[in-house]
């Protein structure tokens, strides 16, 4: 049984720059911020190391942080520039009964994270969902397609905060 802080200290020694910081003091939940391009290495270590054995990925969740700069042009249309997306990974060890939350933050222009679907197969569909809803690209994912929305949905990523639903989809009126 290890706390998030213990795990952070060990990861920091082992992976140095790949582990960015410990976000403690967030009410009810601490998490560790990881470099998106080295996430798979950290996760492989956490899963295979005998001290941690994080064998179960409980949840993977994309989040739009909605921290971009919002501008309104003369014709009244809104435009958002910049901003970040995050992905939260909730891990647990069934045998050792401890839990940890990892997170990565990526820019909305280039939302790329290494996939962990090789580490936990359950990540496969979760990552597809995060791609579908937020447009986060998971590098090395075996089959990154939309999962809940139609495959030919072209209006963007619904759970982004600046998403606007289209007028028509396949000739059908969308707003009801």
């Amino acid at each position: 049984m290890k706390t998030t802080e213990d795990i952070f200290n060990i990861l920091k020694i082992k992976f140095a720059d790949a582990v960015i910081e410990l976000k403690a003091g967030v009410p009810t939940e601490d998490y560790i911020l990881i470099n998106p391009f080295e996430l798979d290495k950290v996760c492989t270590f956490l899963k295979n190391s005998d001290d941690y054995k994080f064998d179960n990925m409980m949840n993977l969740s994309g989040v739009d942080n909605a921290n971009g700069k919002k501008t309104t042009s003369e014709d009244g249309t809104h435009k958002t520039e910049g901003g970040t997306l995050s992905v939260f990974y909730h891990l647990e060890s069934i045998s050792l009964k401890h839990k940890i939350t990892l997170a990565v933050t990526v820019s909305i222009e280039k939302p790329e994270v290494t996939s962990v679907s090789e580490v936990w197969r359950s990540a496969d569909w979760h990552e597809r969902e995060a791609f579908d809803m937020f447009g986060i690209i998971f590098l090395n994912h075996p089959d990154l397609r939309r999962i809940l929305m139609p495959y030919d949905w072209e209006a963007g990523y619904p759970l982004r905060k600046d998403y606007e639903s289209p007028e028509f989809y396949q000739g059908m009126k969308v707003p009801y």
Partner: protein
Amino acid sequence: MPLKTEEMVLNMGPQHPSTHGVLRLELQLEGEIIKAVKPHIGYLHRCFEKHTEVMTYPQVIPYVDRMDYLASMYNEFGYAIAVEKLLGIEVPERVDFIRVIMGELQRIASHLVAIGTYGADLGAFTPFLFAFRDREKILSLFEMTCGGRLLYNYIWVGGVSHDLHPDFVRLTREFISYFRPNIKEMNELLSFNKIFVERTANVGILPLDTAINFGISGPNLRASGIKWDLRRDDPYSVYNRFDFEIPIGDGRMGTVGDCWDRYFIRILEMEESLKIIEQALDQLPEGDVTSAIPKRIKPPVGQVYTRVENPRGELGYFIISNGSLNPFRVKVRAPSFVNLGIMDELCRGHMIADVIAILGSIDIVLGEIDR
């Protein structure tokens, strides 16, 4: 001259009686042998998570009812616990007990549908009618409590909407004594029926390490032979006060983790749920059930991931609050969504008819998968 063979693609669904909803399975076949299964989901997608961002916290509750529509009580239960943790409030003891009673009744109702429809999928129609007859009694208990039969809006943040009906305890006890012999009857009708066993034993074997790696939870995980139940291993509410067993798959009819094990776990769990309900009714404290309901729910900035043992597995709510009246983000970790991901792994090398047996044994609800 060798005969040329080629693989065939067959669509099972979206409208197929044994896909339990609108699910399309794209089967790659070589003759009658499954080479690969690609599930296509999203036919019921309503973007629940987007809806929540424009609603206040209590307004979300009727929506969570509509995810797993066979276990609505449990969806509310999980959501209420998550928001309470975010708010940092405690609920009165009576509320906890009522929630546990409702949750376990819901588990029985949900397992009855799983068992009944599983029998119907495999050609045994009578158990289906028997299961629905008994489930009807549970729905009547729910109706008496909150007016709804399937969608309740009963468990609120900080409490429940109504106190129990004065007759509830008596009628629930009557239900328990009525229902217990019916489990035995179900075993005689279906569980040990030779045809049923032939169709399910040694089919779709799920080894434990694969199950964990795929994130399988609930009865499907326990059927692979591990005592892992969030009610005991990550206790929430008042579950640590009750004495109950956690049944696991033992390969009685074939191999550990086959379809029959996954089916039979649900039968055993109904018995355990009855035990929990009995104990909860005995200990049910008095008190006001609405006193802790906050007038205005405005959690502080923060995030929380909580999970409960839904009839189908680990139901998780990841809620981020930015300090306003609406949730900033609600992500639901739906057990069926994760469990369905195992289809390809389980079906490879089996016959087409076994796909039905395997899909039924996983017990999915499409409303929750598509959200």
